[in-house]
């Protein structure tokens, strides 16, 4: 996994970067919520391993104020699920489901790169999240 040496560069206001701490494993929930302010933003996606993910609420899930996040493609789906749960301040016991194409839920250990290569385009990947099973 890549080192988290993202250099801080300016980005459009709506763009924030998911903090990439390479020592975070999918099954160990980050000890503190990824900071949503003053995080090292990195728009230099072309040369890095990053894509934009667009997180859309569905069903009864609360909406995230910031929907677009830059993310390292080597991250696992479970990392995004943990991130959203922290962001929305959900209890660890609450479920959160993440869907691709509003059709299927990838496994938490699936690598974002695989999902992006198949279902993303132009550096962007849309994911829907939900607090109950939406599309099976």
């Amino acid at each position, binding site marked *: 996994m890549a080192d988290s040496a993202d250099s801080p560069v300016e980005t459009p206001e709506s763009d924030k970067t998911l903090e990439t701490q390479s020592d975070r*494993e*999918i*099954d*160990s929930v980050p000890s503190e919520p990824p900071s949503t302010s003053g995080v090292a933003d990195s728009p230099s996606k072309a040369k890095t391993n990053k894509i934009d993910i667009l997180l859309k609420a569905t069903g009864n899930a609360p909406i995230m104020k910031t929907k677009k996040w830059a993310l390292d493609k080597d991250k696992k789906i479970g990392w995004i699920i943990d991130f959203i749960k922290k962001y929305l301040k959900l209890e660890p016991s609450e479920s959160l489901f993440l869907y*691709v*194409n509003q*059709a*299927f*839920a*990838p*496994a*938490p*250990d699936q*690598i974002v790169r*695989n*999902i992006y*290569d*198949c*279902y993303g385009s132009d550096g962007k990947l849309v994911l829907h999240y939900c607090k109950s*099973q939406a*599309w*099976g």
Partner: protein
Amino acid sequence: MANDREVLREIWDGRVPVCFQLDSSEVNGLQAPDPYYLMVPRLSYFPLVTDKVRRHFQRYIHPDKHDAEMWVDFNGQPLKWHYPIGVLFDLHIPEISLPWCLTIHFDKFPEAELLHCSSREAVESYFMSCIKEADVLKHRSQVVSNMQKKDHNQLWLGLQNDKFDQFWAVNRKLMEVGSDETFKYIPFRLYQGDEPFIQRLVKPVTEEGQRKTLFQFLQEIYAENASKVKVTTHGVEPPSDTPLQWMSEHLSYPDNFLHLCVAF
């Protein structure tokens, strides 16, 4: 596709002999349990075939651990329950002598390496999600979303109860194509050692409209290294001129993905 039905049957009947042993450090008491031998279907998943194994070893472990989640390792490597058994076997072929000796654990769950599997429902929802994903790739999700709940159940029960006819009565709808048609994209996962598997968008036909062979597919993924790649699936090495579309229809696992183990 139904012309090659005997291939489907052969694939379905694939079994591997397994010798399960309890981790010796988890034996509570003086008497160590006997190993437990089982022929397990390649196409199944460990949580679907290890109920008896669990019951066999349960009385030898510390009572506090009776309800703990059971997990399996081979040579110290935890085995992912959500990979089909045949994929796990093929991934470790060079190290395996038969029967395949696996160690059973009820303690020290490797959180960083394995997903939790609380029940068969966890396997079911993972399995169904794979089928849905495969149908997104093959038919833009058209077939699976037009199925009824009972069809979904039949796929799952067919796999769970090892009923070929029950499973294929529904699965054929997911595998059907007109005589000159192909799937839009081929659902596949490429495994190499401990690396995360690779998934890409690959069409079954070339830009000229020819059916792609396995070798052309490998060229697309591995470029000039394609000729060095050895592909194993269901314990066999398919010839490099096998059409990719045919492989998808006949050699896919019940989750509708081709699971190909590669070595260089």
